[in-house]
């Protein structure tokens, strides 16, 4: 209170010249503040990106490291805290399967759930059966929930995104090989996550969308990918593999 009255009295005695000077200065200060605030709001975009990349907030994937690189790093520079936390944590992975409305396949997981520890790769299966007489081509997409855990879910190999063709009444096993990062066990954001759900959905590729070669039943199955940003390396990984030729007579 005393300080306030002192300030008021001083401004009262120097009122006229001081207020004229301060009006221009105030205008300058406020103008600068306004420009600063506008500039800051533009700067939040790259700043937020840096923040997310550094902390993984909101599920941002920080760089793309393969499982081999991660395992090597763990072997050469093990983080004791992370390893111990991962050893003690058990996560149950649940499975969900769906087919699109126009997809006459039976598609289901072979196990309802699997209990895994972060830091160890796991194999699971789905089965798909073509209920009709004709060959049908489909491709699947997947989803991992909750989002916080999705960033730690690494799929090493699976059957998604690529067109898969089943002959009439054919039933086939579809494996999924995945790895949960051990860092999940020591992530404070994930401390309450004990269940993860992996959902797959199969969509049908309509016959008119298939190219001439695909409709020729004696030709080998061509690999076509549906999905965001599939790196070309996935094709080279498969190039030395046998491509199955499907014939209706078999």
């Amino acid at each position, binding site marked *: 209170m005393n300080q306030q009255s002192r300030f008021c009295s001083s401004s009262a005695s120097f009122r006229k010249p001081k207020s004229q000077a301060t009006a221009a200065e105030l205008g300058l200060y406020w103008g600068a503040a306004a420009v600063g605030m506008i500039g800051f709001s533009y700067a939040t975009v790259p700043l*937020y990106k840096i923040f997310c990349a550094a902390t993984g*907030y909101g*599920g941002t*994937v920080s760089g*793309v490291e*393969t*499982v*081999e690189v991660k*395992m*090597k790093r763990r*072997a*050469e520079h*093990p983080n*004791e805290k992370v*390893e111990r936390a991962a*050893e003690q944590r058990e996560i*149950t992975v649940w499975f969900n399967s769906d087919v699109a409305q126009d997809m006459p396949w039976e598609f289901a997981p072979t*196990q*309802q*759930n*699997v209990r*895994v*520890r972060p*830091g*160890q*790769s*796991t*194999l699971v*299966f789905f089965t798909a059966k073509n209920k009709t007489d004709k060959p049908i081509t489909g491709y699947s*997409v997947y*989803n*991992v929930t909750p*989002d916080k855990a*999705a*960033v730690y*879910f690494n*799929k*090493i*190999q*699976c*059957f998604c995104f690529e067109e*898969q063709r089943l002959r009439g009444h*054919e039933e*086939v*096993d579809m*494996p999924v090989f995945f*790895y949960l990062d051990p860092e999940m066990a020591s992530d404070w954001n994930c401390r309450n996550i004990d269940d993860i759900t992996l959902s797959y959905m199969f969509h049908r590729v309509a016959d008119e969308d298939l190219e001439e070669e695909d409709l020729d039943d004696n030709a080998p199955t061509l*690999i076509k990918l549906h999905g*965001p*940003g599939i790196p070309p*390396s*996935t*094709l080279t*990984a*498969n190039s*030395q*593999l*046998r*491509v*199955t030729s499907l014939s209706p007579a078999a």
Partner: protein
Amino acid sequence: MAPMSRNITSAPEKGVFPLDHFGECKQLAQDYLTCLEKNENEARPCNDLAKRYFECRMDRKLMVKQDLAELGIDGPAFLASVSGRSSGPAHR
């Protein structure tokens, strides 16, 4: 500031498993699944069967030949064998 809730989907690292159209490894897959059932869906005890399934696939060119330990199938046990120390609490 709410985080963007996007579905994080990305291509699998090693690509796609070619389908086992002729059921060549089907029996091993069945063995693995039976093991899972017996162990109340716990994955670790069934590791050896998973490895045998992958070896079957590799032999029939349904999977790229690779050392499975590199892919993390043994998890911490692999780390212990590589770094030559026990996977227990740290010795400082």
